[in-house]
């Protein structure tokens, strides 16, 4: 019987046949997360050498053993390398559609890398430096990477760059759609105009706006893919992605208040284009966001959504509780990601594993920076993972 690659990724009968081994691996990796006990030890450390000693007891083992001087930046770099190694190992054991799923996870980092390279070459920085700063999960084939900075900052150069390099990358699609949206009206796609459009867009639109537009397109695309895969994957992943999209929308609105994006005409064109077309807040709340220009209006729009109302309350109490809206969003993310490990027969654990590992790396860097800067009272402001004392777990136990 010829082997047929299954399109569906999530049903009880066929899941373990095709994806059992990678899933077992990822659940093994789940137990490698730092526990509450480890975090307690780390916060008691006096300096970074103590931190290194404590980390040797955990799954991190000897990852810093060859270094003489330990800095927070070094810890981040090495921990990320470890994560990338594990991810690549998982990907090597995977089959379709899990492979495409994992590639979708990588697209997010590719977007950041491309932005970094483009902007870096616009300002004339060294190629090698830029490549060294790229996130390792988002690397293209080395040949492609080398080509990107080679192009000159001329209209023809951009056109070449776009046509040869960006189109071939998986995110080339997002780029072309982004350029479509930003084409100034009245121009037609004649050859010469295209090059100018590309150049204008890349030079004048700020890098953050480009990145957020690409992220929006990416989230929508990922959402479509998960729906196509179907089964439990669709259910769980779509919920996770919708939470991400809502978080982006709220943050963009909130952070634009002090900038030019808050102008009335900018709100309805540029800012609106950054809201993804998925999520609880779409479409009513996001269209209401067009009229929001300060925090009170934002609070009013978020009233009907209980989750976001609570998170907004944290933001309003920021001076009392010292917790910011970013912390509240991170906590909610961690809650949802931990829960996604609870079910079986779907791809969400792979996504959750990457995101939770990222949070762990953030925690490690925060703890080491606090130790180095001697800010002992702030050191506990990280979010521990998989603990029994997380606030949402406590609340659920109390409610029971």
């Amino acid at each position: 019987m010829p082997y047929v690659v299954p399109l569906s990724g999530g049903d009880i009968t066929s899941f373990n046949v095709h994806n059992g081994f990678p899933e077992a691996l990822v659940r093994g990796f789940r137990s490698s997360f730092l526990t509450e006990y480890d975090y307690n030890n780390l916060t008691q450390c006096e300096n970074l050498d103590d931190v290194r000693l404590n980390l040797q007891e955990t799954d991190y083992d000897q990852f810093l053993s060859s270094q003489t001087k330990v800095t927070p930046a070094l810890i981040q770099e090495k921990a990320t390398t470890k994560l990338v190694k594990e991810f690549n190992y998982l990907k090597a054991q995977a089959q379709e559609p899990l492979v495409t799923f994992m590639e979708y996870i990588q697209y997010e980092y590719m977007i950041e890398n491309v932005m970094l390279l483009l902007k870096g070459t616009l300002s004339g920085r060294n190629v090698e430096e830029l490549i060294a700063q790229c996130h390792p999960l988002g690397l293209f084939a080395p040949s492609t990477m080398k080509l990107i900075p080679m192009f000159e900052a001329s209209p023809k150069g951009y056109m070449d760059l776009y046509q040869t390099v960006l189109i071939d990358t998986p995110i080339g699609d997002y780029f072309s759609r982004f350029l479509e949206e930003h084409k100034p009206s009245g121009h037609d796609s004649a050859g010469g105009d295209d090059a100018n459009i590309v150049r204008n867009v890349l030079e004048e639109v700020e890098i953050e706006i480009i990145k957020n537009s690409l992220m929006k397109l990416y989230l929508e695309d990922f959402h479509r893919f998960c729906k196509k895969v179907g089964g439990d994957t669709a259910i769980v992943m779509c919920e996770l992605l919708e939470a991400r999209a809502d978080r982006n929308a709220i943050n963009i609105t909130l952070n634009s208040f002090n900038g030019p994006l808050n102008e009335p005409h900018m709100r309805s064109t540029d800012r609106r284009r950054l809201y993804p077309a998925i999520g609880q807040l779409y479409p009513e709340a996001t269209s209401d966001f067009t009229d929001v220009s300060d925090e009170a209006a934002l609070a009013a729009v978020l009233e009907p959504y209980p989750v976001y109302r609570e998170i907004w309350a944290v933001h309003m109490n920021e001076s009392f509780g010292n917790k910011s809206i970013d912390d509240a969003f991170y906590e909610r993310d961690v809650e949802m990601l931990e829960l996604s490990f609870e079910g079986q027969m779907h791809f969400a654990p792979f996504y959750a594993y990457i995101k939770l590992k990222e949070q762990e790396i953030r925690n490690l860097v925060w703890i080491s920076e606090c130790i180095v800067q001697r800010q002992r009272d702030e050191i506990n402001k990280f979010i521990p993972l998989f603990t029994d004392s997380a606030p949402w777990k406590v609340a659920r136990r109390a409610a029971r």
Partner: protein
Amino acid sequence: MSAQVAPTRMALTLYKGKLVGAKKGYELLKKKSDALKARFRVIAKQIYELKKQMREDAATSFFSMTQAQYAAGEFKSKVLDTPHPAAIRVKTRTDNVAGVKLPIFASYNTGVEIKDNIGLSGGGQKVVSCRNKYHQWVENLVKLASLQTSFVTMDEALKVTNRRVNALENVTIPRIEGIIKYINRELDELEREDFTRLKKVVEKKRENAAKEDKRLAEVKQKMQNLRVEGDLLDDYDLEKKGDVYF
């Protein structure tokens, strides 16, 4: 040195004038030195306070950077790659304290709007607060730099002034006083010399006069003796007005 000065009355008045000038200059310079010293102490105190403040500023700024990176991810390269004109500039002017020109730096905002939207999809507020903290720190840094340059300049000026004060006090004024004393001594001596000479001359004259008298007296005596022997002209009566024929 004293040998080159002519010990005349004119020289004396000249040097007396110089002494007055030197004394007056000494008074004025001392006043300047005191003013500089007072200002110097004030600046040193301000520097101490500001440096203590600087420690706090540095700690909070770097920590706010850590918080921003926790919330918004790595944004260092994004900031470095976006071309910004400077948002804070420093302008210099000179302040005049007791004749000493001090450079003073003042920072001012160029009003350049920073709209790079870092952390737009997360952590933007932390980035803004980080920016504000560093802004505050830079302003304090400019103040500190200004104070330290004035400190150094003031130090130099104070040294120079003190050197001049000491020089006047220990070298110039005693030298002039020495010269004046010398001239006075010489003048006195000249006067004494004159006086002595005068006395001697008067004595000599008296002696000479006495000698002269004595000689005259002797001559008269001789003449009297001669008249007694008779002489040719005895018969001749001067009253008879006849001619004498030989």
